[in-house]
Structures are given as C-alpha cells and as structure tokens.
C-alpha cells in the first residue's frame, strides 16, 4: 500500500458525502441519479482500498457486483425518468406528489 488506508478511506468518505449532499440539494431527477452513481463509486473505492490493504480479493468481486447492480439501476431508473417525462413534462422531484392525500 503506497498511501495509508486512512487516506483512501477519507477520500471515499468525501466522495460519498458529496454524493449525499447532491441528493439533498439538487431537484432535478437526472442529477439526483448522477449523485447516486457518485455514492456507489465511493463505495467501490472503499472496497478496492480495503482489498488492497488486506490482500483479499473479495473487494474486487464486490466491485464487479456493484457495477452490475448500478447498470441495472440505471436502466430501470432511466426508463422511469422517460415515462415520467412523457406523463408530466417535468423533471423536478417536487412534481412527484401523486401519492399525497
């Protein structure tokens, strides 16, 4: 390990918190999706850093799985976004209030 594990975990933490902040701040559906991708990527980084420090290959397997799940999530999410666009003509999260009584 060239740099201490603490530094890599801190980087992963920073990317994760930027993603979470984006989910709360942005109002556009697609940008919120992008921030979710950022969160997943921070998790990937943590997995690889720990795999490198422990010499265990499970982290790499986990990253491959996370990428597969991110692909599935992007496909389903984007088709929902396209549906939403044709139904509502708006990309704002605040326009999704159909369930409100």
């Amino acid at each position, binding site marked *: 390990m060239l740099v201490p594990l603490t530094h890599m975990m801190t980087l992963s933490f920073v990317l994760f918190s930027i993603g979470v902040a984006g989910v709360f701040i942005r109002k556009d559906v697609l940008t919120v999706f992008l921030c979710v*991708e950022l969160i997943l990527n921070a998790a990937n980084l943590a997995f690889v850093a720990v795999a490198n420090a422990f010499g265990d290959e499970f982290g790499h397997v986990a990253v491959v799985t996370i990428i597969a799940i991110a692909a599935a999530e992007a496909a389903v999410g984007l088709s929902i976004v396209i549906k939403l666009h044709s139904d509502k003509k708006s990309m704002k999260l605040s326009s999704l209030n159909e369930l409100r009584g």
Partner: protein
Amino acid sequence: MIENLFYGFASLAVIFAYMVILIRNPIHSGLSLIGSFFCVSALFVLMKAPFLGVIQILIYTGAILVLFLYVMMLLNVKEEEETTWQMVSKYFTLVLVPVGMFFSFKVLNFKRLAARELSEDFGSVFSVGESLLGSYVFVFELASVVLLAAMIGVVVLTKRKEELD
C-alpha cells in the same frame, strides 16, 4: 513519486465530484462525473486493480454514464433554477466536507492492521476471474439474476398501457 500521482488523482476526483453538484446544467454535471470516474479508475490501477480500472472505464463511463447523457439529450433537459436555499446549502457543503475530512483523519485509524504482502498476480484478470467463478460464484449468479430482472422490468415499463392488456 507514485504517491504524488495518488494525491493528484484523488484531488482531481474530488474537484470533479464537487462540480457535479455545483453546476446547474445536468449535461455538464454528467460530463464532470465522467471526469471523476476516470480519476477513480486511475486510482484503481494504482491500487493494483487494473481489471477494475478497465471495467470502470468500459462499463461505468462507457455504458452507464453515456446512457445517462443520451437520456438527457433525448429529453432536452434545461438548466434548473436555483432557490436561495439551494445556493446556500451548495456552498455550505464546500465548507462542511473539509471539516468532516479533518475529523475522519483523526478518528479513522488502521495502524493496528499489519500490512500484507500482495501476491504477484493480485487483481489481474486471471485471479479476479478465478475468485468470481470459484469461491464467490453465488454472487456472480445473483448479479445475472438482477440484470435479467432489470431487463424484464425495463421492457414492461416502456410498454404502453394498451399493449399490456
């Protein structure tokens, strides 16, 4: 020397990630997310995971994020107008995240862990493939089921109502 590469790519990744939430145009934030992912894949390569670095560029940026950009251009998304609350909280994160970073430097301590020697082919395609199809084959199969479910879900979602009946 190589340590400097680490810190350079790390800070570039953080700057690009900030731009994702600071920029108002969704297409521009998608492009800066691609930049961030490129830096993270460089970090993967530096951390002896070359296969994952390639996968990150090929699948994550090459397929998933390009799909995002494609949908953004298809739907002709506009710049969102910002409320004052959004402006304030946006720049508040610029202050808050370094504070959190400082505390995580203080709190996180992995010194007790003894550093392991990595084997010669650690992280290569061969050894990752061996563990994917060997001891973790269940996870691999599960991912295929998830992808199949997503595929069926997308087909059902994009059908029109009258076609479903």
